[in-house]
């Protein structure tokens, strides 16, 4: 009999317990997303389950929301979406640009510096999100800074740095110094050896970092909830303002768009870093 953590044959109550608990875990993880997807195709106004009729009417409504701006609403969905995308783009580019040289320096310098820096750049991960939101709000308000879109982009950069750095570092781990030395001995200047040899080899990790930053920034709610203003607000905040009173099916259809984009991006990251460590 093959011995394993999950017995393939026999195993009685043990196998049953493992599979039972795993099933509950899967259900808790995925049921909300599944229900949102099903209900977004419902033809009725009311959220009765299962839907009696299916239709695309809420998807058309989303298209309407984006094309015919309702001037009476305080926040515009088009503006929020554009802000979300712009912030995500800035966060993605800046965090990656600063992490590439850092990852290079950490992989090529002594151990103490590396450990200290890695600790420093993991801090935003363990720092409570609420506190991050409040701390940035306190600074922006009490110093009365006029930051515009950077109000949201700066905290987001801090949030994604640990993820981007981790991806760049794991990409650096596989690149030995010899490759660089070979390039230099063939006449390349050290900066050129980095730019033409090391960076291209880091490509998969850099891309994974970019996508991670994009996903996290685009979906971020807690910190943004503290930092948004009427002029600078993101899509999750718009969704929140829309559903404070009641749940409307058009937001469900919009949610399905977000789910599809997220799943696509996660699959992409998973493929990029396949076989080289975990997602987290």
């Amino acid at each position, binding site marked *: 009999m093959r*011995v394993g953590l999950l017995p393939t044959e026999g195993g009685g109550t*043990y196998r049953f317990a493992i599979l039972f608990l795993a099933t509950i875990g899967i259900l808790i993880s995925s049921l909300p997303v599944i229900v949102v997807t099903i209900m977004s195709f419902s033809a009725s106004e009311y959220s009765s389950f299962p839907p009696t009729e299916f239709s695309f009417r809420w998807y058309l409504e989303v298209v309407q929301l984006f094309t015919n701006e309702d001037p009476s609403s305080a926040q515009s969905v088009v503006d929020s979406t554009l802000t979300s995308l712009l912030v995500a783009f800035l966060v993605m580019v800046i965090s990656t640009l600063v992490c590439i040289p850092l990852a290079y320096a950490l992989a090529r310098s002594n151990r103490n510096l590396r450990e200290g820096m890695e600790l420093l750049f993991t801090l935003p991960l363990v720092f*409570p999100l609420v506190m991050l939101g409040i701390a940035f709000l306190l600074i922006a308000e009490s110093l009365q800074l006029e930051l515009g879109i950077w109000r949201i982009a700066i905290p987001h950069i801090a949030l994604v740095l640990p993820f981007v*750095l981790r991806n760049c570092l794991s990409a650096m781990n596989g690149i*030995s110094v010899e490759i660089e030395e070979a390039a230099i001995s063939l006449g390349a200047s050290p900066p050129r050896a980095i730019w033409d040899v090391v960076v291209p080899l880091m490509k998969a990790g850099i891309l994974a970092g970019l996508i991670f930053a994009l996903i996290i920034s685009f979906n971020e709610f807690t910190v943004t909830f503290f930092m948004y203003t009427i002029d600078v607000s993101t899509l999750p905040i718009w969704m929140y303002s829309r559903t404070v009173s009641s749940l409307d099916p058009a937001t469900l259809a919009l949610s399905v768009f977000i789910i599809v984009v997220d799943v696509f991006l996660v699959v992409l990251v998973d493929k990029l870093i396949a076989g080289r460590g975990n997602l987290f």
Partner: protein
Amino acid sequence: MSTEFLPRKQALLFAAPAFIAILPFLGACFYILRFSLSGEQGTIEGLSFQAYRDLMTPFFGRSVWLTLKLAFVATVIVMVLAVPLAFVLTSLRSSFFRRLLTISILLPLILNLLVQAYGWILLLGPSGVLNSSLKALGIIERPLFLLFNETGVLLGLVQTSLPLAVFPIVGAVRAISPEYLEAASSLGAGHWRTFKDVTVPLLRPGLVGAASIVFAFNASAFAIPLLLGGRRVQMMGLVIRDMISPLFNWSGAAAAGMILIVLTLFVLVASSWLVRLTTTAKETH
């Protein structure tokens, strides 16, 4: 030596842009500490522990207790679900199903929390999936209230923090050599016995680490109690937010935040110390 290819000065130069990017975060950390020690509620003025003293109220005490209780219960549930999930995930042969399972577990952590809150409202609300199916089956007459109370918040916490436990445990499970399990089995140990006496001890450092991260994450939850607790479940995150938004008691919010940070950091440090203690104890045996 190959590890010191780059001179220190140059290394720091390379690190400088990233350091600038993280500087606002460090400034924010420092600012909140300073604000919590302010004598005034709205500005930084003088040095006093007044904000901390003002927090010594039964209301705040209840909130701390509720936060710790929910975070603890959620952590226990997460660990009970995460270990079997990790076993299943590591024993799946088909890479398609492995990827599908990975994504369905990971998604709740990164997906827009609003979307997930909608899902729970549709599932558990008074006219939601669960209540209407139970009613149709004749099991209940009046809808169960599972939302906007501690049950709803607990489910949301479990869902969003599950991936934080599953993926580190998957790493730990992969590191277990199958020979240990074979040895246990050939010595006559049953599945439960092997699990209790071989698998869990081998996984222990990974389990403690995962549990402490899940606990810290849940203790500082904000969006889940806001969206699924309907403001009735006053976890610390919400209390801190209320101090800022209607009350403008910034130093109080900063002080409450410092308490939250200290609590979560304490759990993280204590657990890593615990792991180190048990592993060194094993080595000296």
